């Protein structure tokens, strides 16, 4: 490796460019999150005066208390948690079952099954026929529309098939000789030794469920079924619209407290992002493999 002494003019220019670029990326990525966090801990009306950049000017938990004491928000959090848990369990179950079956080279009809999965990954009917189908199945405006249509993910089936293939066949064969059927082998032998791939697939399903919002916009009307991200979108839209319609300070609406639409918005963003931060170390570990598998191998 070169040392600092031997740096040429080219090195200096290149390094300056590279480190400035790196610094810009670093700050541009992190600061927006930090700013949201700061505003969520600052008194709402005070924030609208501007100038809060690095630290809460008048620190308060009021915004969080306002969110958690509002039934609409607590219900939304509950729906988000529920759909994440149920959606992940259902998704991992069906996806791993299908993948386990397809990992057997001697399964009859295996090629047709694979074809059906791959075609479904590249083609879809578009939003309108999909809507008609969900309606015919009676899923519209129910909780199940969040978690049932997402149960099978073709890409994750392929990831799991690759994993199951590497399990030594002797393990299965000897269990067969001992009289176990495929269901017993799958549940008691295969799943317990497949924890790494189960973790990856669970994270995929979990993050997708936690972040999902469009299904609620398109397929659900009941306010009781709204997830966190939907409510957040509504607040963002309403604040933008009221801001441009009346041109007046949105905060005037909330006279009793210091809480404003903006501070609620920032607080809910924090509440939405924190769970992702908590699983981020695992995401990193499992997803980097995932993107390489998915994109490079196509």
């Amino acid at each position: 490796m070169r040392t600092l002494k031997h740096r040429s003019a080219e090195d200096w220019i290149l390094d300056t460019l590279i480190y400035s670029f790196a610094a810009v990326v670093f700050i541009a990525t992190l600061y927006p999150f930090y700013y949201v966090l700061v505003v969520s801990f600052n008194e709402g009306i005070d924030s609208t005066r501007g100038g809060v950049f690095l630290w809460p000017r008048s620190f308060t938990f009021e915004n969080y208390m306002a969110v958690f004491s509002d039934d609409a928000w607590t219900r939304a959090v509950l729906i988000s948690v529920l759909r994440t848990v149920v959606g992940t369990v259902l998704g991992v179950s069906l996806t791993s079952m299908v993948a386990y079956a397809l990992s057997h080279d001697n399964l009859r009809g295996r090629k047709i099954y694979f074809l059906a999965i791959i075609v479904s990954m590249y083609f879809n009917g578009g939003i309108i026929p999909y809507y008609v189908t969900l309606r015919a199945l009676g899923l519209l405006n129910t909780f199940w529309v969040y978690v049932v249509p997402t149960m099978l993910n073709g890409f994750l089936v392929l990831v799991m098939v690759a994993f199951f293939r590497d399990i030594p066949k002797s393990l299965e064969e000897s269990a067969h000789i001992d009289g176990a059927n495929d269901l017993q082998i799958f549940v008691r032998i295969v799943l317990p030794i497949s924890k790494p791939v189960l973790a990856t697939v669970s994270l995929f399903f979990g993050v997708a469920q936690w972040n999902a919002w469009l299904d609620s916009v398109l397929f659900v009307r009941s306010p009781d079924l709204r997830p966190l991200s939907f409510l957040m979108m509504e607040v963002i839209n309403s604040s933008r619209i009221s801001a441009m319609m009346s041109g007046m300070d949105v905060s005037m609406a909330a006279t009793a407290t210091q809480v404003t639409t903006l501070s609620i918005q920032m607080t809910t963003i924090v509440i939405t992002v924190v769970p992702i931060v908590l699983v981020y170390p695992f995401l990193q570990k499992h997803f980097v493999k995932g993107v390489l598998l998915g994109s490079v191998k196509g």
Partner: protein
Amino acid sequence: MYVSTVAPVGTLSQKRRLLKQPWLHVFAISGMVFLALFAYMPMFGIVIAFRRYDFLDGIQGFFTSPWVGLSHFREFITSFRFGNIMANTLGISILKTLFAFPMPIIFAIALNEIRLPRFKKTLQTVSYFPHFISWVVVSGIAYALFSTEFGALNDLMVRIGLIDEPLDVLTNPRSFWTLAVVTDIWKGLGWWAIIFIAAIAGIDPTLYEAAEIDGAGRLARIRHVTLPGIRGAIVVVLVLSLGNLLGGGVSGSNFEQAYLLGNELNNARSEIIQTYVLKVGLRDGRFDFAAAVGLMQAVVSLVLILSANRIAKRVSGSSLF
């Protein structure tokens, strides 16, 4: 436990037993039932693009409603918004291919040149975090930064005297395309760089040493060793993003951006095919017409990805399939 060391005996009867595999078939068939309902039924439903379909007909209408040929397609192509919607869809996507596509490559190369291992690792870890948050959150953050009233960036720029008036980035039609490209870069930079970083890691280090001995400077090494070394990865991502040109490139973010960052004020530049489909379909109840518009986009996309793949194969020898 079921695990035993008994050697397999009577391979014939065992084979027969494996062929029966009742549970494996239950597993596979439940997956197929799922696909039939949620993938193939809607796929078949595309036929309503060629029929006069009434919402109340339900699934039966897929089979029974009267054929109208290409009249929905004709109506869309001749409608007064067609030109505008196509311009927006293509304009945003082409800008993304020009600016958002090369950024992860530049970032990966820059990261490779950083000699502080801890900063390098931290930066990479931080860089792909935005990939994991939803576009709803991104639009909320955009509001917090760019709102003309309390937007932090506007506030800061006014305070330091860079601008006199806050910029109406979120509502000015003319800034929507820029907003779309910038937020796309912000969200996807680190994530798409992963592929290129992995490709760079796969380059034989002796190539760099040989180049250095031959007197190549750092820039020359980037040009003659790093770039050729990641050419395959670049082609793959380029084919993917050209194939999804109408969807917004490799990240496919056009729809969510247009839906969440678009509004009545910037509609002239933010309405794209996908948001138009939703409006005429689900809001106005014109399911057949909307399905036809959606189908047109799908067909164009298919043609694009096949031709991008063919061009890539001819030009560089590497391709996706």
